[in-house]
């Protein structure tokens, strides 16, 4: 067989493989949106439970993301700049929530923050019952999605040459002030992208949340609840709206990446 024929065959093979992969990814989601999308959007106006559920999902995901940005950005900076002792251990600990099944994550959270735990008990005595509250939802989202943010933020910060910080420090900045005044804006787009990924992951979480808080229901739990209680047709509109909600951060992310690719300076 000639080189030209081999090349054509290989190209056709790659194209076919890509089509199969894309088909497997797009087909289920496309079918869901096609069958339930219009009804889902219509139900947004008539179904207060769906609206409340979406609102709860967005609020808790946003709260978890904000908390992660607040707590995770300094940690990502320490990791990126090699200023963290036992960096390998810390990195492994951060990756752990990504590796365990999410219902297991929910059980672990229940053990740590449930009524029977010292922390959960103390919170309940203080009037804050964690399990069954929106706080627990945000906590579950935080647990499963924060590692994604820290990892992506670390990469975004590592891409900023540390000499910028070095120069800022010779000009009078403390390490944190240099990080705030120089690295944060230079890594800004990467940090925003990391936050968007985290938010999207938080919105789609089910396994850990359903263990900690079945009610009030976030969108993923509502979708599951309607499927198990009323069947596929009842679950379709909620599921389709959840997919549409997930599309928003995806579009934001793609837009950020496209702008970066165009070479616009990070501000």
């Amino acid at each position: 067989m000639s080189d030209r024929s081999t090349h054509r065959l290989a190209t056709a093979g790659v194209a076919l493989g890509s089509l199969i992969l894309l088909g497997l990814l797009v087909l289920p989601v496309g079918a869901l949106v096609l069958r339930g999308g219009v009804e889902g959007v219509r139900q947004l106006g008539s179904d207060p439970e769906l609206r409340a559920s979406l609102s709860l999902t967005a609020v808790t995901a946003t709260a978890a993301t904000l908390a992660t940005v607040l707590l995770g950005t300094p940690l990502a900076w320490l990791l990126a700049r090699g200023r963290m002792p036992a960096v390998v251990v810390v990195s492994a600990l951060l990756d752990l929530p990504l590796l365990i099944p999410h219902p297991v994550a929910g059980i672990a959270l229940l053990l740590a923050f449930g009524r029977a735990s010292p922390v959960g008990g103390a919170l309940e005595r203080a009037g804050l019952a964690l399990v069954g509250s929106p706080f627990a939802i945000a906590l579950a989202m935080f647990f499963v999605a924060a590692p994604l943010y820290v990892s992506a933020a670390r990469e975004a910060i590592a891409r900023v040459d540390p000499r910028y910080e070095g120069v800022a420090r010779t000009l009078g900045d403390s390490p944190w002030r240099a990080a705030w005044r120089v690295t944060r804006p230079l890594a800004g787009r990467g940090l925003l992208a990391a936050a968007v990924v985290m938010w999207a992951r938080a919105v789609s979480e089910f396994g850990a949340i359903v263990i900690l808080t079945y009610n009030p229901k976030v969108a993923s739990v509502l979708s599951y609840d309607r499927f198990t209680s009323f069947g596929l047709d009842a679950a379709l509109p909620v599921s389709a709206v959840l997919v549409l909600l997930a599309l928003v951060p995806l579009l934001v992310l793609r837009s950020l990446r496209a702008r970066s690719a165009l070479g616009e300076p990070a501000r």
Partner: protein
Amino acid sequence: MIETRALGARAGTFVLHDVSFLLPRGAWGIVLGPAGAGKTTLLETIAGVRRANVGQVLLRNADATHDAPERRGLGIVYQHGYLFPHLSVEENICYGTRDRAYAASVADRLGAAPLLGRSVADLSGGERQVVALARALAPRPDILLLDEPFAALDPRRRTRVRRELHAMQREMELTVLQVTHDFAEAGTLGDLAMLVEGGRLVQAAPPTQLFRRPATAAAAEFLGAENVFAGTAEPIARGAEAGLDTVRFRAGALTLIAVGEYAGSRSHAVIRGEDVVLARIRPGPSSARNVLEGTVVEVAIVGSLARVTLDVCGVPLVASLTTGSVSELGLATGVAVVATVKATAVHLC
């Protein structure tokens, strides 16, 4: 004042070893060395942006080894400027100071005033360096660390900025430590020149001494000495003082008489091209101890100077002459000439 004592630092796999020197207050130090020698690492360790893992850094006679960079009161300028791209030129220059009027005056003196309204992204490499210099000087440091700060400037602007910076250094009694690859710059500006190679300080001396009496053959070659011969030395007469021994040096069929310190039989002899005098006929009696007969094998013209390579007993010897001398002597390939070199111009290392 900058002093380092047995300073060592790490930059990835690169290691800076045992660097000791003293640069007095108000002096201009030059750091020379091949790419990857550790020049930038040395500057960064003095600035404190890189941690010293051994030794000491003393600034203004006080130990600053463990001081944070922001407490060291110095400025650093990198070759690439490292201007903050999210800030304007003016914001960059004023980054480390609240005295905007002073920052503007520094920018004006360095010729950066017309750039103030510009975006950093629109600046050329040379403009970036000028802005970076102004930014480093605006907080009024008394120590300035420069990593090839003039490399990207066009010749005209380079002369102007260098002159202005020199004037500011004298006015403000700035202690400057500058990395450069420009030997002329080292000779013009430097009070102390340091040669760094492989992470070690090979030699620290006034520039004239560094160029004329390099510590090693490798240093001599890096510093542009045209003639570096490996051979053997034997003392003919011991001098009354160190460095005044009369030594016979042999490299193949070439024999040279040198005045210097005899430090063992295995040695190198260094002769700068401008110390080799050429004539068409053997001169009469003179004080020059080395009179060598040879044949011209190459004449290379570089601007107003010529580099004439001779074959002396099978050993190449290079002389630097003016093009006028070349034409007056009628030097061309194959012409027989006599080269004379004073014994004091033969440096042994």
